[in-house]
């Protein structure tokens, strides 16, 4: 099944919750409404025609000029692939993008649909600050629960891959400035 057909199935079920679509480039995708995303994820996995049983990747893009984040879900269906010419052969694959406001990026978790989303969402929160509501590995923060950090230390300040991230000048007494003279040790 090609991306147009998959999008048509989605459109028949969700209608105008699919905001826009682009099948021209190297990465055909649809852009969907954040509120419909969890239902759509369940549908994508459980529908007999689609059967997207594998979440390949979650990427997050910082569109600073547009003041929004784009969360990219790459899906992959392995069901019904027999005698595949090589491993990882896909029956079909698809991409869903979700655009979020940059200052308050909240998205429902899909870790209950695809287990792979657990760590991917933790990473997306750690490096980009997208909060996934209802994540199974959540901790309490100042603005409510958010996924636990996965790469940076638990007390890390800020989200390093944001385009407007400011580097820490000091971390637990260790100077972190990149100026040579200030970085040299004093002992």
């Amino acid at each position, binding site marked *: 099944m090609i991306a147009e057909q998959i999008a048509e199935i989605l459109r028949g079920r969700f209608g105008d919750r699919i905001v826009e679509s682009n099948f021209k480039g190297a990465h055909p995708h649809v852009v969907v409404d954040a509120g419909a995303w969890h239902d759509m994820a369940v549908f994508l996995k459980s529908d007999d025609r689609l059967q997207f049983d594998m979440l390949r990747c979650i990427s997050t893009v910082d569109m600073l000029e547009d003041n929004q984040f784009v969360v990219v879900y790459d899906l992959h269906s392995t069901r019904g692939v027999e005698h595949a010419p090589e491993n990882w052969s896909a029956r079909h694959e698809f991409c869903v993008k979700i655009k979020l406001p940059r200052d308050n990026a909240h998205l429902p978790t899909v870790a209950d649909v695809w287990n792979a989303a657990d760590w991917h969402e933790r990473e997306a929160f750690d490096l980009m600050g997208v909060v996934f509501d209802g994540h199974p590995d959540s901790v309490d923060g100042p603005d409510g629960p958010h996924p636990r950090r996965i790469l940076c230390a638990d007390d890390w300040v800020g989200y*390093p891959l944001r385009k407007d991230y400011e580097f820490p000048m000091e971390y*637990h007494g*260790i100077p*972190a400035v*990149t100026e040579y003279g200030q*970085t040299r040790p004093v*002992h």
Partner: protein
Amino acid sequence: LNFFFPKSGNEPRGFRDGVEVFPERESDEMSWIDNRFEEGLIVTSLDWAINWGRASSIWPMTFGLACCAIEMMAVGASRFDIDRFGAGAFRATPRQADLMIVAGTVNFKMASRVKRLYNQMPEPRYVIAMGACTVGGGPYYKHGYNVVKGVDLVVPVDIYVPGCPPRPESLLEGLMRLQDKIKNQSVARDAWRTTKERALAGVA
């Protein structure tokens, strides 16, 4: 009795008055025999024997952080064979190790662990900063938001081995320079102080 036991009493190493302390300087630490005798003929002969023993059995800690650790493993294997220098016994616990080869990028999350491992090592203890990252941040110097710009900001370093990663021969060279350093040590009182520090401390 004080002669045989460390001054800190029953307190675990790395703790002072119940608080974990991180030594900032090499001179803050010593083993049980150091800094107890005046310089003299006997001490000089003792130095030779002690230093020979210490320099000939530098046991490193099994501790690798990144790609430099691969080179460190090569040094430990038969082709380069760090055991020729008596430093082949990689210990799986810091409490049995004399040498910490910090092989790889140290980031802020790891820095406290490096500190703790260093504190758990018995004195005399030595640190080799292996590779560009541990020497001064390396390729992450400018844009590495979470990389410590040199492990000497965390623990005192004896030998710097540059390279990205260093050739195994470089690490062996660093080990030999560390042996040179150990062979110049003395257990005599205040021998480790510089002239300026002696003057400040009121020692001749």
